[in-house]
């Protein structure tokens, strides 16, 4: 049984996640993770073969922050807008008070000419904890079905 306060907090977290990426508020997006978080993006074919290889991995919030800094000051990538569509999460209560959440996503990109395409589809596997009434990602593993990445992967999934 998961208390309705927790469910509400998780719903807010999911909504903020999509909002902060899609509105280009990446510096605020970083704050949705705990300090000791794990964030990684994994091709489904590696998961299927039991291989540990990742597309990207952050072992704490500082590394998530560094991803954003690098995008802001160093990297060049396709000019686009992101649009996340995230399905309702399946929630499982954990003994330590955290909640496991699994949800599907579709991520569309749109270029400067106004053309949109499906950039990525896959699922999130999360461990969500609660601090001061707010839900945060202790773990967010993005399993990418579209592992033939169209061009490149810059802004977060």
């Amino acid at each position: 049984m998961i208390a309705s306060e927790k469910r509400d907090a998780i719903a807010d977290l999911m909504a903020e996640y999509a909002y902060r990426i899609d509105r280009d508020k990446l510096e605020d997006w970083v704050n949705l993770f705990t300090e000791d978080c794990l964030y990684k993006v994994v091709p489904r074919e590696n998961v299927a073969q039991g291989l540990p290889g990742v597309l990207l991995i952050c072992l704490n919030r500082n590394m998530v922050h560094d991803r954003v800094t690098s995008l802001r000051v160093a990297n060049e990538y396709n000019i686009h807008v992101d649009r996340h569509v995230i399905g309702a999460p399946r929630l499982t209560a954990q003994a330590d008070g955290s909640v496991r959440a699994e949800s599907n996503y579709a991520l569309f990109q749109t270029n400067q000419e106004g053309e949109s395409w499906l950039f990525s589809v896959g699922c999130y596997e999360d461990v969500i904890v609660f601090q001061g009434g707010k839900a945060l990602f202790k773990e967010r593993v993005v399993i990418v079905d579209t592992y033939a990445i169209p061009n490149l992967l810059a802004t977060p999934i």
Partner: protein
Amino acid sequence: MLDNSIWPAKDYSRVPFRLYHDQEVYDLERERIWRGPLWSFLGLEAEVPKIGDFRTSFIGDIPVVYNRGDDGKVYGFVNRCAHRGSTVRREAYGNAADHTCIYHRWCYDKKGGLIGVPFRRGVKGQGGLDPAFDQAQHGLETIRIESWHGILFATFSDKVEPLEQYLGGPMSNMLARIMARPVKVLGYQRQRIKGNWKLYCENTRDQYHGSLLHQFHMKFGITRVTQKGGAWMDTRHRHSISYTREDTDAQDSAQAIAAYADQKVAESDFQLKDQGILGYKQEFDDGVSLAICSIFPNGTFQQIRNSMAARQVRPRGMDEFELYWTIFGYEGDDEELEMHRLLQTNMIGPAGFISMEDGEAVEIAHRATMLEGEACSIIEMGGGGKIPDEITFKVSDVPLRGFWSYYAELMGIEPEGGIR
């Protein structure tokens, strides 16, 4: 009509955009490059360790299967049924005693030989194949596979020179160095880039772009153009190894800043909050911390600090290719080292801090050169004329001219009096 008049410069310092955008060129490449007298990078022995292990791959856009035969050697064949042309092996990988096409269940052994045709004698004396039909003559089209220290190369040609000779001294040595320990595959990355495959072959041979396109280096102080580096090539200049040695410019920071200031690219002092990704555990005693080994036509082996990977270029028509990354470490890596390699995977691939830009660079070059077949790119960084075997500086794109000179030779379009 494609002929040897296409080159505006005899030293390959001008490359007509038509070579990326012409269906006639692409079709000729299928014959003269991909089925030509050379060795293509196929995969790793470590991916098929047991008898019957198979994987699918590509030589150019030709789908192939490689698998470990009963005698322990790796064999391969084109993944197209001899009967009606269907894909025989649909799974990307697995283990199997033989390979059966699902359409009419024609069955092939690990060497591609035809070993079973259902209803060959018909049913109750009716139907079936003519008794004169010779099964031995109707196997799958085979490819010849050889291994260089665990790296598999394949060829369609029986005229090709021996593999070691094809690789040449610098490349065969560098690959042997990378493969000196048994390899452990950590995973794969793929990206689909909307550009001609040769644009990527140029990209990996082009050291000039390194510190300019990939700003991560400079912004976070990882490497600079003033670091000691250069390129080694074989005597035919078809392959190229770009390298950098570690910490050779630690004393020259002022010089580095001046070099960038000249280019109006300011030295920046952003700091990563977590420096773990930049760590370097020295694994080789030659001081080389970065080696990009570009093997003609489709392979790249990289050491970027402790990140090891192979890249395979798989054309999908003239306007798109798949870049297929095989990330590896070594048997015997402890947990900490394996995690360090995964952490440095952040540098490479479609999401890599110092490689995501390459996809974009290829796409914008491909997009803007379409229908401009007569216009040319300029390849003059590091000078023109005769191509040297070694470049001892980093502001250079000389190895691109090496690529094009060998390409022209294979395609039969070398300019008269060509300089290479």
